[in-house]
């Protein structure tokens, strides 16, 4: 059941067993006490425990949050039951006392809620009168100062920050380049000098950093452009080899890359 639902809709679809909609475990307990025509004052704890479990079993459509609350209450009832089985010592309170008190308090809450519902029902059809004032300048609206609370203050801050974020979208910040093409050209050149036939694709694919792979690829293409290296690929999608052409790499030819 959605506690935020104030429209009074059915909390959950009713299963085959018709149970009234309960506001929680205390509501259910109160219902059980009443339906057995028991007085809250002399509840049979064994009886109520049994009934409570039976009712829970019939309500298999509880949502998880509610279910947790019903289970906590079941554990509480079980604890009261086991304590009441033990002989009581002199001056020790009836373990049921706490249950009785909570049910009485909850009964008061329900009665007060019913009073409010009655007041509301009478006034539901009323609407505040709002006639336009024959004034040249419209009055500024706002909130009554005495009614402004911390929730509204926090809401105002959220509104400012939301608007600020909308009017100041984060800039597209490019991180500084960690790899320079120049550096990679020199690196690749050393590799092809040494290996004669260098498997560029495998090398690219084993780099941990994607940016490094991209830089290496560009460096490879630069070597080809500078006619220092040739590219071979024996099968489509196969390995790409770089082989030296014999033209030496002149560092000043690399240019500003």
């Amino acid at each position: 059941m959605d506690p935020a639902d104030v429209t009074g809709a059915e909390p959950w679809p009713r299963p085959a067993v018709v149970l009234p909609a309960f506001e929680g475990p205390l509501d259910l307990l109160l219902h059980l006490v009443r339906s057995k025509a028991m007085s809250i004052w002399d509840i049979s704890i064994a009886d109520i425990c049994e009934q409570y479990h039976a009712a829970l079993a019939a309500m298999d459509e509880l949502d998880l949050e509610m279910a947790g609350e019903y289970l906590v209450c079941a554990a509480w009832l079980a604890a009261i039951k086991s304590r009441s089985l033990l002989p009581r010592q002199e001056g020790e309170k009836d373990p049921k006392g706490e249950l009785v008190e909570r049910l009485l308090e909850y009964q008061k809450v329900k009665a007060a809620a019913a009073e409010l519902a009655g007041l509301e029902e009478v006034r539901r059809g009323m609407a505040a009168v709002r006639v336009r004032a024959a004034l040249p300048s419209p009055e500024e609206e706002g909130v009554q100062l005495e009614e402004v609370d911390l929730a509204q203050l926090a809401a105002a801050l959220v509104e400012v920050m939301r608007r600020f974020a909308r009017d100041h979208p984060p800039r597209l910040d490019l991180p500084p380049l960690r790899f320079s093409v120049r550096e990679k050209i020199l690196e690749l050149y050393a590799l092809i000098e040494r290996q004669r036939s260098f498997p560029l694709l495998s090398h690219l694919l084993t780099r941990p950093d994607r940016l490094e792979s991209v830089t290496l690829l560009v460096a490879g293409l630069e070597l080809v452009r500078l006619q220092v290296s040739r590219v071979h690929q024996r099968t489509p999608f196969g390995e790409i080899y770089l082989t030296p052409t014999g033209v030496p790499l002149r560092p000043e030819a690399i240019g500003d890359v």
Partner: protein
Amino acid sequence: MSDGKHLEAVCEAVLAVAGEPVTLEALVAAAGEGATPALVSEALERLAERYRAPGHGLVLERVAGGWRLATRPELEAALRTFAGVRARARLSQAALETLAIIAYRQPVTLPEINFLRGVNSAGVIRTLLERRLVRVAGRKQVVGTPLLYRTTREFLVHFGLDDLSGLPAPSEVGLEDVKEGAVGP
């Protein structure tokens, strides 16, 4: 000029544009020179009387410490037909229980409400805050310093109360079981 008729007219005009309860002081101020609280009160009583006559669609009510003009409850159907005026949704049982706890025990914290209701009421409180029926009124100086809640002026207007003393007294709130004996088995 502050003859009775003029005061009635001023009160009617001010209340008609206000859209919310207006205090007697604000009405006296609006009426200007020569107006006194006593004279304005009399004018308001005459105005209220006038609205009670047949053929009137409005009521002048005392609510939330002021005076307010509202439509007659029995004209609900007509207003609902008229586009632009939506019927107010009834509060759910959960909202009513939570409001009842806040109204009678204010200021009160969420843990206290949760204990009394036996269910977590955080979502309900959020809805009540949005509807301005309750407000945050500081923190309780206990472990966790939970926020304290109170009812608002809008709460009084919603339920037609002049102030919190107008809440049905707790003893009037039907407690058949309590009458049977002292607290404690």
